[in-house]
């Protein structure tokens, strides 16, 4: 987390392209596969109570640390809770954090990036310095510091991750606004007497938002990693609410008795991250005018 790592795409806007990844799958196939995974996970999370007969906090002392069986497809954890059920409900937390943090960051980052890129000058200079300062922290470290200040919980996690994302998204948008604002169609609209507000919202924004939305998709993948990482550290959502990272933490001590308790949450995290990454990289290469992926 890799600001965390983790957290690769997030730290910097210097482009690192995964052309190869998308080339291997084919441009549209990457988007289709990514979208399929994301939609499937969303459906599973929404329909959690219909998919599984168990509740995520019901303990059963007859079946503690059990392997996969007909009754418990993924097995059970140290308290005899059904692992499949807990994984399914964990997706709710993952997706809430992923969508919540990115939407919040877009709501703040879009106006900032648009205004900075469009007006330039002192305002732009000040905003960019502010952004440099926020980017001076690894993402997970900033999140840990904010959680120390604000306390723990889902909302705090969403806010903490959004704080990390605002500068990243604002910077990407500012970059594309700088390219677009001199375009002839913007000049044309200005010559026809369009006001600044109209120019920004009707002409500049729609033509420059693409890369920002791609980045936002990739940041959702990263948010899932950060959420799982923070929950693994015990700084995420509070029990008994299940989270994939916290499940890993809970099973960490029993890892040799119960490999399933670690294996399934690991696969679930990887699947969720992969889904958003495929979608993001697929969208990016379809936006890339140089058609670098072929």
């Amino acid at each position, binding site marked *: 987390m890799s600001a965390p*790592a983790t957290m690769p795409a997030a730290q910097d806007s210097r482009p690192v392209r995964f052309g190869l990844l998308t080339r291997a799958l084919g441009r549209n196939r990457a988007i289709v596969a990514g979208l399929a995974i994301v939609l499937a996970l969303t459906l599973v999370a929404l329909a959690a109570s219909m998919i599984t007969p168990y509740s995520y906090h019901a303990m059963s002392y007859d079946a503690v640390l059990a392997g996969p069986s007909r009754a418990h497809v993924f097995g059970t954890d140290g308290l005899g809770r059904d692992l499949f059920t807990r994984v399914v409900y964990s997706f709710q937390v993952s997706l809430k954090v992923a969508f919540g943090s990115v939407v919040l960051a877009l709501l703040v980052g879009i106006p900032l990036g648009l205004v900075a890129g469009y007006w330039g000058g002192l305002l732009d200079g000040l905003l960019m310095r502010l952004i440099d300062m926020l980017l001076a922290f690894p993402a997970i470290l900033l999140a840990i510091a904010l959680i120390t200040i604000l306390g723990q919980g889902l909302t705090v996690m969403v806010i903490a991750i959004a704080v990390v994302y605002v500068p990243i998204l604002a910077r990407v948008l500012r970059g594309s606004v700088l390219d677009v604002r001199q375009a002839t169609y913007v000049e044309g609209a200005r010559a026809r007497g369009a006001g600044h507000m109209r120019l920004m919202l009707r002409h500049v924004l729609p033509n420059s938002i693409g890369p920002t939305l791609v980045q936002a998709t990739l940041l959702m993948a990263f948010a899932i990693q950060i959420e799982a990482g923070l929950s693994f550290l015990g700084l995420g959502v509070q029990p008994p609410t299940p989270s994939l990272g916290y499940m890993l933490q809970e099973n960490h001590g029993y890892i040799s008795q119960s490999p399933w308790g670690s294996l399934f949450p*690991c696969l679930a995290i990887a699947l969720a991250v992969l889904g958003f990454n495929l979608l993001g990289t697929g969208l990016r290469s379809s936006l890339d005018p140089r058609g670098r992926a072929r």
Partner: protein
Amino acid sequence: MQGTLGYIARRLALAVPVLLAMSVFVFAIIHLTPGDPVRAALGLSYAPTAAATLRHQMGLDQPIVQQYLNWLGNVLRGNLGQDLISHQPLSELLSQRLPVTLELTVLSMGLAVIIAVPLGVAAARHPGGIVDRLLGGITLLGISVPDFVLGTLLILLFAATLNWLPPQDFVPFTQSPSDNLRHLLLPVIALAMAEVAYISQTTRASMLETLNQDYITFLRAKGIPERTVAYKHALRNAAVPVITVIGVQFGTLLGGAIVVENVFSLPGVGKMTVDAVSTRNYPIVQGGVLVIAAIFIAVNLITDILYGVFNPRIREGQR
């Protein structure tokens, strides 16, 4: 040469406000957190008079700006405060913890570079070939499996199932170099994987661009062996983006180390900081955040400077 020095001076000057802002934020960790640090420090021996004395001793009765300046002065003199529980000075704690984190991150980056650069070069020499396809798979794995998840999977396979390697704990290098490396092997692999993806993709892209240039065609026409062309001539010119990505990713690695240290119970700065959050040992959190952020800023600064030194166009553009 003068241009280079001027560029370095400008980059250094730009880092000052960033460091100051970081210090304000770290200072705020104690002052914005709910709860009274005096009450926390006194614990069960809390009494109003003792509290007033301690408050005065800690300088907490002074105006906030004065408190910040006092704190900053102390930090600059290397006095980072002390552990609320063990009363050990933080500088002493850090001298034990920081080497662990640095060894972990530097070894991970080293391993990543050793794997990634040849892989990226090989993939660029034969686009679409076996190595190139293999690289696609590694990239997919590297960016989709977070380091602490990979760490858990490695423990599951090599420690819990096969019993080849110890699952956790740490042995100092000075005590037993071989045991030290055995304990660090899994965490280093866990951290390095994602970096392999980033560095090899950057190497590949940069090499592809370089290999298409005229002087490379000329070298080939002269009959210089293909390997020499790739490794001696092209790689040298393709190195700048690779160095940049290594610098940028080093920061990512530091963030990753925070979680990975906890997976493997390594006594580094990251584990120290996280443990301190749950015990509300705020001076430790402050110190941990400060040190990690300072290293992060320093590495980014060095990367920026190297980038400018290798790339005169950037240097001129900033003027």
